[in-house]
């Protein structure tokens, strides 16, 4: 007791040894190393995608409840869709997923211009998808297939109210999907800029991978929306 002098100051921790190799500029201080940081970010993104799966899943559940209740209306409503454009858009989106996966691969290999090029192609395919979608929206608007006061489609008066319900799901689900695509396009532009500034490489490709997880998820949503909305007319109850 007697040899401890109270100075009123907190003890100063020992000064850490100066590291010979400086940290990677993008290693956050709360991670041990880039490997741990990569795993944590992948896990975190999947936790976010869980909420997205349940978000779109909940809407699809509501869709199925009404599809089973009104099978005839759903069949007729599906014939009002442009299947050729829907199928084309599915292929376009799958191509954008391929180039997104290749962008991650280019990042893993540390090929700066390769990343930029693949992200650019992904952006082009994504924009094509949105362009075709806007064309379809315009046609549906003209046909009076927008629910509410703009609705004037009445070829089948008996089924029209239920088809309006189908179209509510159509606009809602494809609209939310398109919103995700637009956010993805913004992310692609940002990531093209970051790749151009040479911020990604074999040690640090995590962000491109996470961007890819988002983009592929949006692709998966469309893989389900395409048969749900465009391809019901083959089967009649």
């Amino acid at each position, binding site marked *: 007791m007697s040899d401890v002098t109270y100075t009123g100051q907190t003890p100063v921790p020992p000064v850490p040894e100066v590291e010979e190799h400086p940290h990677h500029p993008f290693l956050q201080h709360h991670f*041990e*190393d*880039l*490997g*741990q940081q*990569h*795993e944590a970010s*992948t*896990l975190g993104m*999947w*936790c976010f*995608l*869980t909420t997205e*799966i*349940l978000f779109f*899943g*909940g809407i699809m*559940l509501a869709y*199925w*409840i009404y599809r*089973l*209740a009104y099978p005839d209306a759903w069949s007729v409503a599906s014939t009002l869709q442009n*299947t050729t454009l829907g*199928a084309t858009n*599915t*292929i376009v989106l*799958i*191509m954008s*997923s*391929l180039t*997104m*996966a*290749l962008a*991650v*691969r280019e990042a*893993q*290999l540390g090929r700066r211009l390769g990343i930029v090029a693949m992200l650019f192609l992904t952006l082009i395919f994504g924009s094509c998808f949105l362009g075709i979608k806007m064309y379809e929206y315009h046609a549906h608007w003209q046909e009076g297939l927008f629910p509410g006061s703009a609705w004037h489609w009445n070829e089948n008066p008996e089924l029209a109210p239920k088809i309006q319900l189908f179209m509510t799901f159509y606009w809602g689900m494809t609209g939310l999907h398109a919103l995700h695509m637009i956010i993805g396009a913004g992310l692609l532009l940002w990531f093209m800029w970051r790749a151009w500034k040479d911020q990604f490489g*074999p*040690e*640090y*490709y995590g962000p491109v*991978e996470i961007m*890819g*997880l988002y983009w*592929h*998820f949006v*692709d*998966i949503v469309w*893989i*389900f929306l*395409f*048969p749900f909305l465009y*391809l*019901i*007319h*083959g*089967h*009649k109850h």
Partner: protein
Amino acid sequence: MDSATHGTAPDHTPHVHVTPLWVYFVVFAALAAGTILTYLASTVDLGWANTPVALVIACVKGSLVILYFMHAIHSTRLTWVVILGSFLWLGVLFVLTFADYLTRSWAIY
């Protein structure tokens, strides 16, 4: 899951698993074929089977994207728990809801 290299043991080195190009192109071809197949299947009258066929094709396509494009096949076991957990809860949502709707004798089904 590549448990031989990325198992439960802590692996603190950045692991880069570069998938060969042909894998990506084969998966892309399978996804495109699946799209054409689901379209063709919808033009044939399979009776009650049309809907299950479309759902199975969509699930296979989605699984291919998750496994190969999203690299789930090389991810850690903890990530697998989160991925499978997502679909488990989605399944609970569907099963319990339809256990109600489909068993209401007074409903429109």
